[in-house]
C-alpha cells in the first residue's frame, strides 16, 4: 500500500541574476522531475551528492515548501493543496528530523517543552505527565533524562540532533522524514538510534524517508534507495539492486568512494579480540 506518492516534483529557486541590485531575477532548479513512492512500513533512503536537492525534496514532501510543479499524495490524497483539517491530519502523520540540529530547536524552550511540543500541538496529553514522558523519550535516544530542563544551547551537536529525533518520535507518525538524522552521532549511539527506528517500524509500521551520506547505515535500514545528483533521481531501486548491481555511473562512483577503516588494522583487532 502506497503511503506517499511523489510525482514529477520540481522546485526552482528565484536567485539573483547578474548585474547588481536591480538585476532581473534568474531561477535555479534545485529539484528536477523527481518521482518516487513510499509504501507503508517501508524505508526509502535518499543518498546523493551534497547540494543535489535531497533536503529540498524532503521539505516539499513534508509540505514545508511549495513545489514549482508536480504533486505529492499522501494516503491517496493530494496534499500539495490541502488546507485546514486535511493539512492538520497530514502534519500529524508526518514528522521531520532536520539536518541542522540547533537551528531547528527553539532557543527559548527547554528540552521538555521542545520534545512535548508535537503533543501539545496535536492536542494529545502524555500519559504520566510531561516530565516522565520526556524522561523516557530522552532515555530512548541516549540522552541524560536529568537534562530535560536544559536549553538547546547547552547541548552538544549530537545531543541536539537526538532532541530532534525524540521530538519526531513523540507522537505516532506514519511517516518520518529523517534528513541526516544520525550524522552527528557516534557509532554506538547511532546504532542504538537505528535499532530504535527499526523497532518502531516493525512494531508500529512507521515508514521512513531516510536521507544520509553514510552508505553503510543506508544499507542497514533501507528497503529501497534513491540516488540523487544535480536535482534528479539518477537511480531508484531496491537496496540490494542499488548496492549490488548499480546501474548509474554516479552510483558506482559513490559506492567506490566509501571510506573504510584500514582493513589491515581491522583484521588485527578482530584477531586480538578473538584472542582475549
Amino acid at each position, binding site marked *: 500500500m502506497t503511503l506517499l506518492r511523489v510525482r514529477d516534483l520540481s522546485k526552482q529557486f*528565484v536567485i539573483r541574476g547578474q548585474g547588481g541590485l*536591480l538585476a532581473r*531575477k534568474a531561477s535555479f532548479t534545485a529539484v528536477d522531475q523527481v518521482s518516487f513512492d513510499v509504501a507503508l512500513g517501508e524505508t526509502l533512503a535518499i543518498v546523493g551528492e551534497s547540494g543535489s536537492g535531497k533536503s529540498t525534496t524532503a521539505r516539499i514532501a513534508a509540505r514545508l515548501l511549495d513545489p514549482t510543479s508536480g504533486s505529492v499524495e499522501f494516503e491517496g490524497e493530494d496534499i500539495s493543496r490541502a488546507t485546514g483539517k486535511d493539512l492538520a491530519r497530514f502534519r500529524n502523520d508526518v514528522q521531520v528530523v532536520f539536518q541542522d540540529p*540547533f537551528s531547528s530547536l527553539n*532557543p527559548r524552550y527547554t528540552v521538555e517543552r521542545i520534545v512535548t511540543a508535537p503533543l501539545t500541538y496535536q492536542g494529545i496529553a502524555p500519559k504520566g505527565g510531561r516530565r516522565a514522558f520526556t524522561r523516557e523519550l530522552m532515555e530512548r535516544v541516549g540522552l541524560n533524562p536529568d537534562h530535560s530542563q536544559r536549553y538547546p*544551547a547547552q547541548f552538544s551537536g549530537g545531543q541536539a540532533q537526538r532532541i530532534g529525533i525524540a521530538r519526531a518520535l513523540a507522537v505516532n507518525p506514519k511517516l518520518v522524514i529523517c534528513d541526516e538524522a544520525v550524522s552527528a552521532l557516534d557509532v554506538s549511539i547511532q546504532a542504538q538510534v537505528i535499532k530504535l527506528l527499526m523497532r518502531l517500524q516493525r512494531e508500529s509500521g512507521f515508514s521512513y524517508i531516510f536521507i544520509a551520506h553514510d552508505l553503510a547505515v543506508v544499507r542497514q535500514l533501507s528497503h529501497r534507495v534513491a540516488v540523487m545528483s544535480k536535482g534528479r533521481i539518477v537511480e531508484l531501486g531496491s537496496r540490494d539492486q542499488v548496492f549490488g548491481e548499480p546501474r548509474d555511473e554516479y552510483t558506482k562512483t559513490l559506492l567506490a568512494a566509501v571510506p573504510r577503516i584500514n582493513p589491515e588494522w581491522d583484521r588485527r583487532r578482530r584477531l586480538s579480540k578473538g584472542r582475549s
Partner: protein
Amino acid sequence: MTRYVIGRLGGVVVILLAVCLFTYLIFFKLSPDPAVMICGKTCTPDRIDSIRDVLGLNQPLLTQFWEFLRGIVAGRDYGTVHCSAPCLGYSFQTNESVWNMLTTRLPVSITVAVGAAVLWLLAGVAGGLISAIKQGTWWDRSAMALALTGVSVPNYVLALVLQYVLVVKLQVLPFPAAPAFADNPVLWFESYLMPWTVLAVGYACLYARLTRANVIDTLAENFLRTARAKGLSRPLILRRHALRPALTPITTIFGMDFAGLLGGALITETVFGLNGIGKLAADSIAKNDQPVIMAVTLLAAFFVVVGNVVVDLVYTALDPRVRVTSS
C-alpha cells in the same frame, strides 16, 4: 521590486485620501462651526450665514471635500481671492495661505528633527551597545538607570529645567529661537542645542534599552562565536555582527519616530517657541483653525506613511531572509 514600490506608493495615496476624508469629517463635522468662530465676540446670525457662504460651508460635505481635493491639485477661488495650486486653503484665523504657513515652518521642524535624530541615534545606540557588552556591570546599571530617568521625565519638564540651568543660571546658552544658519552658524547651533537635546533624551533612552536587549540576544548567537574565531577586531565584530542584527528591528522604530517628528514636535516646539509644524499644529488646534489642522495632519500623515514605506524597503534590504520570501 519596482512593482512592489509602485504598489506601495499607490497605497500611500489611498491612505492619504482616507486620512484626508477622516480628518475632514472629524474636524468639519464634529467640531463647531468655523463661521461662528470667525464671526467673533459680537456676532449676528446674518453674518454667520454670509461667512458660511463665502467659505462654501453651505454646500454638502462631500462637495466641500471634493473642492478641497481639487484645490490641492488645481487651485481654487475663495470669494474674491484666488488660491493657486497646491491650494490647502486659507487659515480661518490669520487669513494666510496655508501652503505658505507650512513651507515657512517646515525647515524649522526638519532642523529640529534631524538634529535630534542624530543625537538620539548616537547616544541611544552607543549607550545600549556598551551596556549590552558590559552587561551586569556598574556601567550597565547606571546607564540603564539613567535611561529610565530619561523616559520618566516628561520632556516639557526637562525643557524648563534645562532652560533654567543652562540659560538662566549658567548662561552658557542663549534662549532658544530659530535663527537662520547662514546668519550666524554658532548662534544657530547654540539655539537648537537645547531643543535637540530635550527631544532626543526620551528617544535615546528607548533606543538604548532596545539596543541593549537586542544586542544581548545577538551576542548569544553561534555566528558571533564564528566571528570571534576568525580573529576579527572587536569593533568590527560588534559593528558588523552584533549591531546589524540588533539594529534591524530598530530601523522600524526609527523610521516611525523620525517621520513622526518631521510632522512636528508639538511639545518641544511649543515650549521653546520654535515656529515649526508642531507649534503650528498646537496653535491651530487651540484656535480650531480647521484648514491649518487639515494641512498639518496631511503633512504629518504624508511623512509617516512614506516613512513606513521606506522602513519596509530598508527592512527587506537589511534582512536577507525576509527579502527572499518577499519577492
